[in-house]
Each structure stands twice: as C-alpha cells, then as structure tokens.
C-alpha cells in the first residue's frame, strides 16, 4: 500500500449557525480512487471546495505530498496539481469552450497577453478528444446542453495533465447528475485512465456508482466522517444507513399523534405531471388531514416536482386539481392565491424576508383577513402576531427583532408560521423543514406539522432522513430519477421497512 498523497486532518469549517465540517480527516493515496458519500449538507461538498481552493478552512491542515498547503484559489490549487470537476458551475457561459478550458491557466497560446485563437482551439481540441467528443472548441458554452457542459468541465481539469508536471489529485463533485448513460461510461473510462498516474476523489449521491469506481469509501454525515470502508466489503444498504444516521426513538416524531382515520376529502390530485426535464409522468392523490412523504435521493426529482406544483417551474405536461378544480399556476403568487403554501429548503434565499422583523415575516403571506383595504395596520395585526409567536414557541425578545438575528430553528418556526396565519391555506409543501435545526427545534417543528394535519391541512413533506419520513407521514411515495418507484398508502397501520424504501430510492 503506497503512502498517502493527500492527508487531510482535523479540517473544520463553520458558517454562521452551521458547522459544515467538524474535525474531518481523510487520506488519499497514490493512484487510488476514493469515494465520498453523504446526503445534502453532510459536508462532502465543503470538503472538496476547501481542497480545490474555493473556500478556506477554519481549522485543520491539508498536506500534499507531505507539505502543508492552503490553496487560495482554484488557479492556485491547479498549480499544486489539484483539480476539481465542478457541477457545471465553474464555466463562464459567455466564453467559448476553448477559452474556458484554459481560463486562468498559463498556456502558450495566450502568453504575453495576446490570444492566438488558432493555437488555442487546436489545444482545446486535443483535450476534447480525451473525452471522445466532437464539441467545436469555438462554441460559446452557454449554447451547450448541460451534459456537454459537464464534459467540458472534465476536459478543463484533464488539461492540467499537460500543464502541471506533478501527479494530479482530481476531485469529482457529483459529476454524473446531468450526464447520459454513454457520457457516464466515458467519464468512468477517464477515471480509470487517470488512476494510472493520479489520485481521484469521487463524490456522488448514487451509492452504486461510487462503489463501481472507488476502492475505498468515506461516509459523511452532519459534517463528520462517520465511516471508512473498503468498497468491496461495504453493502449498499449498510452505507445508506450510515449516511442517514442512527435510528432514533420512535415517539420523537410524535407518531402517536398521527391521525388514524383521515378526513376523507380529496385535496390535491396530480395526474401525469412532467416538469423541468427532471420529473416524468408523476401521479398521486393527497387527502385533507394527511402528511404525504416524498422519499428520494438527490436527482430523484422530488424537489423539482414540488416546485412545479407550486408554480415555480412550468409543467411540461399533466394536470393538477385542487379541491376538485383544475389548477394551473403560472406563478407562485397564483398558487398562494389558490391556497398552496411552500416552505423552501433554502430558508435564507427564498423563505424569509431577511432584514425585516418577525412581525412582517409572519404576516407576509396572509391576505386580506388582516388588512383593511390596501393599508397595512400593524396595531391591528399585533395581537395576532403575539399569539402566534407564543403558539410557535419562537424564542425572541420582541416581534420587532429582525428575523436574521434568530437561530435557525426559530427562523424556521416563523417561516412555518407565515403559512399558518393564512386562512386560505389548503396544501402546505415542506421542503426539508428541519435541515440544520437542533433536536429541540426539530421536535417543535414535528409538533407543528402534526397539529396542522390534525386541523385538516394536507401536507407534502420532503425530508433529509428516512426516520423523519417514516415517523411523520401517513403515506410515502418513493421517487428515483424523476419517476415514482413505489407507494406506501397506509404507513400508520402498516409501517414500511426502511430497507424496502431504500431499495426503491437508490
């Protein structure tokens, strides 16, 4: 067994309110492919980004061939022989393929400030030949389909082979999510070829892919490295269980509060819905007073599906009926008007009015019941706001506090409360509602979800963990690659095994 090329020890990275990496140590040896698996937010992307010079760590050290390094940019990491294949985000869409491949690299064709386009294109064509594609290097990247952009990303990193004369360490961040089957084969062939003189770190949601290319696998969960396994020895379901964490006490999810007999009116009926090129022909029914869990890994299409239901993405086909009426939402505001609510996963980006106080955030989605004509009367709203802050158990000194000054859990309660205040709410979509919350706050959110369902609301839940899905939901639908792979209609009396669910997801 050869000596490690890359040694990461005690790496820690904090963002306000979140620990992205918690004392993580990994090793990559010469001519080895190492797999890295974990859920969204488990820290695997943060780890890659620090290695590739995109972010810097708060603590810990990285040793490359024995020397401590701290790459400050992708270009600096490239100089050291570390290259990262990003998920299509490191390309400039308005420049040509050739320019992108050599951007920031010291190449003879652009030396001394002058571009010699002929030489640059020839050099780019040589790189593109490695990935068996005939993409014209003069094409502007923005005009390529996503799969081809991903391949250009690959070519961009492969170009380091000729430009840097040390053995490379190449990091792949979810490279397969937009590739076709044939493209994935080319990618795997390149990884096998690279292996002969380089080291590779491969990250994917798809455990079977990771097992297929890697010799060793690290499992990450909640910012920590929770396991290291030889790829041959590890079973897929065992790895998945390591990824999602240990089972917790069942009553934690307030299962006893699930409604045994549901209010029996059909709230939402989805038929043959396709959207955003990621969701194909999905149908389901949702009854009032029930919680429906959508289970799936990254790329399963469940996020795109709920965004389409909420009018944030256009439907390419299919139909939606809300309370028996045909609904086609051309924008989220139409969906809200009709009684849909959506608590997004990106709380900071889409769910809250950062910089505004709790009061404003709470009443942001309520319509006319708090208003008199076009005017906003804060005094009239105040008692309602106070009551709800108490009911939601929001820990804040006053409703005038800015929402971004609260902890993540309290922020999430306010964001949920925003929808609870709306008297026309019919269906509520919760997209990873407990992500990044501590245990106590999670419990409060579970209580709220149960209360809402008991009150007759229909809820769609997308969760990070299977335990949460199985503990909270009355029905579960498993999705994979944009289609439904299985349904569990009566989780209250006939709880599905998590193994069955995993098999349908991966």
């Amino acid at each position: 067994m050869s000596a490690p090329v890359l040694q990461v020890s005690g790496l820690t990275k904090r963002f306000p309110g979140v620990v992205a990496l918690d004392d993580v140590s990994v090793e990559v040896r010469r001519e080895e492919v190492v797999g890295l698996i974990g859920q969204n937010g488990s820290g695997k992307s943060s780890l890659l980004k620090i290695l590739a010079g995109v972010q810097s760590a708060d603590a810990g050290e990285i040793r490359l061939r024995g020397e401590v390094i701290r790459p400050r940019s992708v270009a600096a990491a490239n100089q050291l022989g570390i290259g990262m294949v990003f998920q299509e985000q490191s390309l400039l869409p308005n420049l040509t393929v050739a320019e992108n491949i050599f951007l920031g690299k010291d190449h003879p064709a652009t030396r001394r400030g002058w571009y010699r386009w002929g030489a640059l294109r020839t050099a780019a064509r040589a790189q593109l030949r490695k990935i068996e594609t005939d993409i014209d290097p003069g094409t502007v990247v923005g005009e390529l389909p996503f799969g081809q952009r991903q391949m250009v990303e690959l070519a961009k990193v492969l170009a380091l082979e000729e430009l840097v004369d040390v053995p490379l360490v190449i990091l792949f961040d979810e490279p397969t999510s937009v590739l076709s089957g044939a493209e994935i084969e080319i990618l795997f062939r390149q990884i096998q070829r690279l292996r002969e003189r380089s080291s590779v770190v491969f990250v994917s949601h798809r455990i079977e892919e990771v097992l297929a290319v890697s010799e060793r696998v690290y499992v990450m969960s909640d910012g920590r490295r929770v396991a290291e396994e030889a790829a041959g020895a590890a079973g897929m379901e065992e790895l998945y269980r390591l990824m999602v964490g240990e089972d917790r006490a069942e009553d934690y999810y307030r299962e006893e509060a699930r409604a045994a007999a549901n209010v029996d009116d059909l709230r939402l009926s989805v038929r043959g819905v396709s959207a955003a090129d990621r969701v194909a022909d999905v149908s389901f029914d949702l009854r009032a007073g029930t919680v429906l869990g959508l289970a799936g890994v990254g790329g399963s299409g469940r996020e795109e599906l709920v965004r389409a239901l909420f009018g944030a993405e256009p439907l390419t086909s299919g139909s939606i009926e809300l309370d028996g009426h045909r609904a086609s939402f051309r924008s989220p505001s139409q969906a809200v008007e009709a009684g849909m609510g959506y608590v997004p996963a990106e709380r900071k980006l889409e769910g809250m009015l950062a910089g505004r106080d709790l009061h404003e955030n709470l009443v942001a989605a309520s319509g006319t019941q708090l208003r008199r004509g076009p005017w906003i009367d804060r005094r009239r709203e105040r008692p309602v706001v106070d009551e709800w802050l108490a009911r939601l158990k929001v820990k804040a000194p006053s409703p005038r506090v800015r929402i971004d000054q609260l902890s993540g859990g309290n922020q999430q309660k306010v964001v949920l409360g925003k929808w609870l205040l709306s008297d026309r709410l019919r269906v509520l979509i919760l997209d990873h509602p407990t992500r990044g919350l501590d245990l106590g706050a999670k419990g409060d959110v579970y209580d709220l979800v149960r209360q809402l369902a008991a009150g007759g609301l229909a809820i769609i839940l997308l969760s990070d963990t299977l335990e949460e899905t199985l503990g909270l939901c009355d029905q579960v639908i498993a999705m994979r690659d944009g289609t439904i792979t299985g349904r569990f209609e009566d989780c209250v009396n006939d709880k599905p095994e998590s193994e069955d669910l995993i098999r349908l997801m991966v």
Partner: protein
Amino acid sequence: MSPNSVPNAATATVAAEGRTRQRRGAGDRVRSLTPGLRRLRTWGPLLILAALCVIFAVASPRFLTVDNLQTIANQSAIPIVLVCGLTFIVIMGSIDLSLEGAMAVTSVVSALLIANDVNGSDLGYLAVLIGVGLGLLFGLVNGLLYTKLRLPSLLVTVGTWFVGLGIAALLFPARQPRISDGSLRAWSLDTLLGVSRLVFVALACVLVAYLLQRYTKFGRYCFAIGGGEDTARLSGLPLDRVKVAAFGFAGLMAGLAGVMATTRLGVGSVEAGEGLLFPTISAIVIGGTLLSGGRGGILHSLVGVLILGVLSNGMVLVGVDAYVQQAVQGAIIIVAVVLTTWHARSRMRVIK
C-alpha cells in the same frame, strides 16, 4: 393509470425503464437560445439600422445624399470614441457615468495649454497628448476607487463626474479660452474624403478597441468578469488589474473625446461633454451589449451609435417635433433591451 392501486414491485420495474429514458433526456437537454433567436440578438441591431435607413430614404429625398451621410458621420465621431471605452466597462457589468466630468477637465486644460487668447502657452500637439493623458489618469482614479474601496462603480463615477465638473470650473479662467493654434484647428476641421479627420480618429479607436476585445487577455477577461465574476476570481484571473485597466481605457477615450470636442469647437469649455452620457450608454445598450455584462461588444456599440445618429438625423429631415424625437429614442431603447434580454426571462428570476 390510477395512482393509488399500483403494486410496488410492478412500479419498480416500470421505473427502471423510465430511468434510462430519463437519463438520456437529461443529457440531451438544451436550455439555450434557438439558432434563430441567437442570430436575431447578434444581427438585430444591424437590421434595425438598415430598416431605419430604408424608412428615411423613402420618407426624405435628402437622406441618402453624400452630404447628409457625411453629416451623420461627423456627428457620430465623438460618440463613437466614447463608446469605444465605455463598452469594456459595460461588458464587465460595471458602469462609468463620469465621462462628462473627464471631458470637462480635459477640454479646459487642453485649451489652456494650446495657443489661446487667455495665457501665453503654446504646447501644440503636446497639449493634445497631455489632455488625453489627463483622461487616462481620470479613468485610473475611477478604477482604483472602485477596486480598492470596493464601492459600486455607479456611485464612484457619479462622484468623480461632479468632481470633474468642479475641477474644470475651478480651472476655468475669467473668460472662455479660445484656441488660436491655427494648425490644430485646421486639422480637426479639414476633411478627408468629405468627412472630418475626427471620423478617421474614431474609426482608428474602433479598430484598437476591437483588437483589444478580441485578441488580448484584457479584453477576454472583461467578458469573463461580466459572465461570472466569482468564477473568474476562482480561476485566478487578476480581476482588479483588469478593472483598473478598463476604467483607465474608458478615461483615455473620454479624454480623447474631450480634446476632439475642444479643437472642433475652438474653445475650452466645462460643457464640452454635456448631454453625451445618456446617448453613449443608450447606444451601447441599443447595440446589444447587456448592462448586466458578459455579452455584446465594440462593433455592437458602433451600430448603436449609428442607429441613434441616423434616427435623430432622419427625424429632423422628416420634420418630427423635437419632443416627439426624444420619445421615439426612448421607445427604441426599450425595444432594444427587450430584444436582447427576452430569452433570459424566467419565473423565479429577480429583476431590480
């Protein structure tokens, strides 16, 4: 298919087939312009220019005369020089509003250094160089304030715009300096092939700007910054240097435009550039360069200047009321922006 009655095992097999289909679909997916739309964005401004020429040629027999085309060329010379510099700034996604200030300073200073009726200096062509150099300095100051203080370029250049006007007013002597250097005056008024030599200066600027844009790291990096500054930074590009250089070049062009205006008018004036900022930015936008950066170019801006030039000239010939002319110019800008950004609309995009 009833959604509630499908047994799990059966769904799983169906889904396995669906999966390969879905995968392939993802690889083939195109979320970009159709070739037709792309061509429209590239060639649209030129089509608008051609259409305007046809309309005015039909409407007025005087439009397509050599005399009139020479007039349009002469009037466009200074705006063309200005867009040569400003286009690089706009491609980066920044803006420079200070060009009228830069022109004011260079106009007053160069008029006072050339032989004039206020003081005894007589530096001749050296004064032209000094004026242009002052413009460069002005632009470099803009660029340094922008990059080192990390202020938005809009605010920095609104500030330096008025600082420039203030400096020019301070330097302005008791009475307006008239240029008495006969050879300089003659050089800018003489015609070559029927148009002012300043038109050839402007075309030389276009050539230089085009070479910079197409064949130098400076030009390509301006596009990179406009296409995605974070990506450009991560790729290790020297962003601050490129930005300072772009503002320096824009200042240089503004200085040259200031000197051109001075020799053409024969007087140094604080108002040398007055009213040129808005048409310059409009021309760049109409030509198809996005204000958000990343797309467009110097030839687009040249077409934009000509569209505005032909439009105002043609409307005068046809006898359109002056206020209506302004309204038409405004409408053309809106149409141009809609044409260049139509594809970028999406439901969740925030427009500010």
